């Protein structure tokens, strides 16, 4: 399993792996929004929590089809499915690798993006914390979507149509944490709901992902 993780990480990090595309997308979004909305710090500060969360979500979405597509094409997914490691574990490792290469970097550069969007000072801690708690759910849910569409030729657009509605609760709770943090309100409730959502998704969704993967490999 660790071998699989390091293999996936290495594939993602080396040339052609698409690592950094999500980050670049996140950066571009943070540049485009002020250009579209106008540079007033007051306006930007209000919408910053939502924009940052939507940006993180879309950046996550960009790299989802890579989770299984390449392995499916060259047949290594069939090997993984017949390996002694249960497919549920393989799926979880894949999601973990996706999070390490997409979610974690997003968390790390999010304060810089917050700076660009004049996020209020009190909200930085909550931004990092909510993204840290929420992005694993995005990766796990996205892995389910990727497993659903792995056999399809034009799966990319369909993948976003399937996955984005599933992202809604995560987005609502995550953005709420930051918005409440920015206003100096208590963030305990949305934070607890976000954590519950992530834990539930991490615990249960790999089973669904493995199930649909088995169907697709039939």
């Amino acid at each position, binding site marked *: 399993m660790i071998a699989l993780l390091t293999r996936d990480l290495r594939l993602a990090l080396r040339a052609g792996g698409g690592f950094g595309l999500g980050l670049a997308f996140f950066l571009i979004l943070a540049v485009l929004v002020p250009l579209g909305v106008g540079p007033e710090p007051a306006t930007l500060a209000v919408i910053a929590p939502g924009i940052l969360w939507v940006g993180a979500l879309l950046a996550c979405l960009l790299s989802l089809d890579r989770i299984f597509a390449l392995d499916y094409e060259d047949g290594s997914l069939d090997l993984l499915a017949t390996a002694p490691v249960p497919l549920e574990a393989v799926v979880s490792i894949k999601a973990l690798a996706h999070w390490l290469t997409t979610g974690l970097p997003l968390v790390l550069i999010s304060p810089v993006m917050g700076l660009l969007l004049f996020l209020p000072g009190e909200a930085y801690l909550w931004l990092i914390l909510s993204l840290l708690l929420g992005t694993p759910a995005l990766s796990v849910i996205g892995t389910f979507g990727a497993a*659903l569409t792995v*056999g399809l030729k034009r799966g990319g657009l*369909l993948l976003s149509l399937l996955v984005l*509605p*599933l992202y809604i609760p995560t987005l609502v709770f995550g953005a709420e944490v930051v918005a409440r943090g920015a206003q100096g309100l208590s963030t305990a409730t949305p934070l607890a*709901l976000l954590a519950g959502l992530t834990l539930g998704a991490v615990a249960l969704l790999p089973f*669904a992902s493995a199930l649909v993967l088995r*169907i697709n490999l039939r």
Partner: protein
Amino acid sequence: MASFWEYANPLKFMRTTDWLLPIVAVAAVAVTSIGLIWGFFFTPDDFRQGATVKIVFLHVPAAMMAINAWVMMLVASLVWLIRRHHVSALAAKAAAPVGLVMTLIGLITGAVWGQPMWGTWWAWDPRLTSFLILFLFYLGYIALWAAIDDPDTGADLTAVLCLVGSVFAVLSRYAAIFWNQGLHQGASLSVAPGTRMDWAYKAPLYVSMTGFGLIFLALVLAGTRTEIRARRMKALVMRERMA
């Protein structure tokens, strides 16, 4: 009546629906017409809302069926996953477009009603938002069916999507409530004492709801029959090619 499980045999299903479908279809048209005509022309205007209140006879049944259609798809998907009941999978497929249209009717009549009452076509109210989200779930489900060639794989994948989607649809509903307090009134019909709606409205509303339920049933039966025929045709074409 034969047991539900015997209708996993498409032949048996076709034979029963041969006579059942016309009856249901006629009943659906009749009951819905009665409900709507009664509701639109033979109920008093509301004290404050005037004649606009009468859109309730379209709005509430459509909204109810939009949710019930998803529940029916969920049950049908479970039946397919657990018992490999082929007709059940096809019924879930046939129900999705009907549910989508019901959701759309609910949203549009709601907008038409909201304009004079709330002064806005749309509000990011929890109920409205969850309906829009339900609409997206229907779109995704239908798109996944359309994208997969192999019928059994398609049935399996959409069934799992329906299960997972149901969990997330419920989560989204509570997330939406958490996220924004709304304009929308509470439940129109309630078993709680002190229900606000008068029987002059309630009776035609119940008739209209029954009619919408029958319409849904008729459309799903017709859709399932079409799916079965389409599959038979495919099998015939394959056989011709092999020969």
